[in-house]
């Protein structure tokens, strides 16, 4: 692959080329081997500092980034905004500039506003990695989903991938759609009408409201979490109703006379979007996704650090 990574940030998959996504996946493949060693550490980011800046609660993404950074020998600082000066009214840009002034190298940020990561990246010289911004994008989650799919099925081109659940409020869905369509997969989103955003077809996906029909053609299904904490129970007064009509169950899968891969970004709502039998069953790759997340995030941290070095070098050369 001749692609060169020259971006200091990873903000989303929308603005990446097919080759750039391919480069991240190929780099992640190499990093996966590191986690299988007895000494699970390489010195690639020794002496660099990674700051996890999370404006929304998150355990798995934050821990995954922390583990990834530590396996690259970086120093990691976690800032939970509930206990920081953000509570005293500091703006995002000011927080970012202070972190930059501390000579940190990479900010990994989750924020509840769409576009927050891009805004911060523009204001800073250090790298910004988007760990989820509002309903916009969650690029590393999509990358690890795609990585897992590729590992399982050997390719992305030509696959039928279904994304089921709250598409309207899901940054995971949006990043997956960008990534998968760029790599040549056919994507179908499936949910009750009120959870499908208007004009989603323009992203190059099919829309369906019939889960059994979607499962019939799908090579893989990405089951999204019903985000009850986001809509305050507006969309779904009855959680069981959703399970009945859209939940991924053993009965639904046993009707298919074929293999299918079931993914879920976590955390699981067992008995709402997925049954326990399926989540723990043979089709599920949910825990492999978690393992692959480390390799993907190592690759991303490594590449943005390189991209930052390059952009600095060009500046001094001018």
């Amino acid at each position, binding site marked *: 692959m001749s692609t060169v990574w020259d971006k200091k940030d990873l903000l989303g998959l929308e603005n990446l080329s097919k080759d750039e996504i391919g480069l991240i996946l190929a780099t992640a493949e*190499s990093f996966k081997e590191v986690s299988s060693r007895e000494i699970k550490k390489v010195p690639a980011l020794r002496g660099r500092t990674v700051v996890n800046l999370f404006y929304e609660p998150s355990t798995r993404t934050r821990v995954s980034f922390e583990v990834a950074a530590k396996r690259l020998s970086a120093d990691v600082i976690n800032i939970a905004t509930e206990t920081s000066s953000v509570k005293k009214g500091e703006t995002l840009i000011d927080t970012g500039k202070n972190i930059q002034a501390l000579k940190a190298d990479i900010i990994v940020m989750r924020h509840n506003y769409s576009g927050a990561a891009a805004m911060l990246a523009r204001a800073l010289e250090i790298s910004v990695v988007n760990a989820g911004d509002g309903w916009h994008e969650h690029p590393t989650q999509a990358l690890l989903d795609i990585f897992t799919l590729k590992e399982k099925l050997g390719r992305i081109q030509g696959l039928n991938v279904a994304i089921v659940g709250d598409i309207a409020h899901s940054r995971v869905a949006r990043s997956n759609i960008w990534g998968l369509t760029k790599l040549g997969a056919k994507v179908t989103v499936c949910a009750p009408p009120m959870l499908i955003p208007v004009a989603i077809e323009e992203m190059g996906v099919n829309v369906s409201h019939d889960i059994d029909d979607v499962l019939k053609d799908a090579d893989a299904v990405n089951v999204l979490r019903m985000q009850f904490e986001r809509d305050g129970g507006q969309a779904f007064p009855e959680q069981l109703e959703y399970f009945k009509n859209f939940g991924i169950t053993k009965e639904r899968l046993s009707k298919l006379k074929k293999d299918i891969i079931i993914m879920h970004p976590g955390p699981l709502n067992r008995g709402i979007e997925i049954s326990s039998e399926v989540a723990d069953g043979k089709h599920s790759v949910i825990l492999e996704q978690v393992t692959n997340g480390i390799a993907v995030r190592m*690759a991303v941290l490594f590449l943005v650090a390189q991209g930052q070095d390059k952009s600095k070098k060009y500046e001094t050369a001018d």
Partner: protein
Amino acid sequence: MREKAKILDKDTLSRSLMRIAHEILEKNKGTKDLCLVGIRNRGAYLAKRLGACIQKIENESIPVGILDITLYRDDLTLIASGPLVRKTEIDFDITDKNIVLVDDVLYTGRTVRAALDALMDLGRARSVQLAVLIDRGHRELPVRADYVGKNIPTAKNETVEVRLEEPDGKDEVAIIEKDS
């Protein structure tokens, strides 16, 4: 860029490898606990070939692995292209083994330094030796090779290009003069 001289061709290159294989066997008194580890990219091909030479001589195959040292380099930021990180493929335990590291050209010694670090993270080898096809001088670290195909004094504005059948289509070694 101008090719100044051809130093090795297909025949001389394969004779050099055969001699190195004999020297490795002589020094290690046979193949017991002996493993070869090639440094990507071209060292990996050379290690495979040395493995084949040793097999021919002793009628015994020894483990051959591949080491990717990208993550251990000290000059990552100096390389404009940003090298693709590739996998280390060593599917045997190196603990208590005698490891022969194999690379194409020995120059500053920094690659070998990185390879030693990478190797240490994989286990505790009993000994580590170094085999290179070309030693071109200009060391920046206290490193020397145990087995050398050919010593070639070079100037700093020259590079040594090792071309191998597997990636390049033919076996030869040339000195290239860079435009200054």
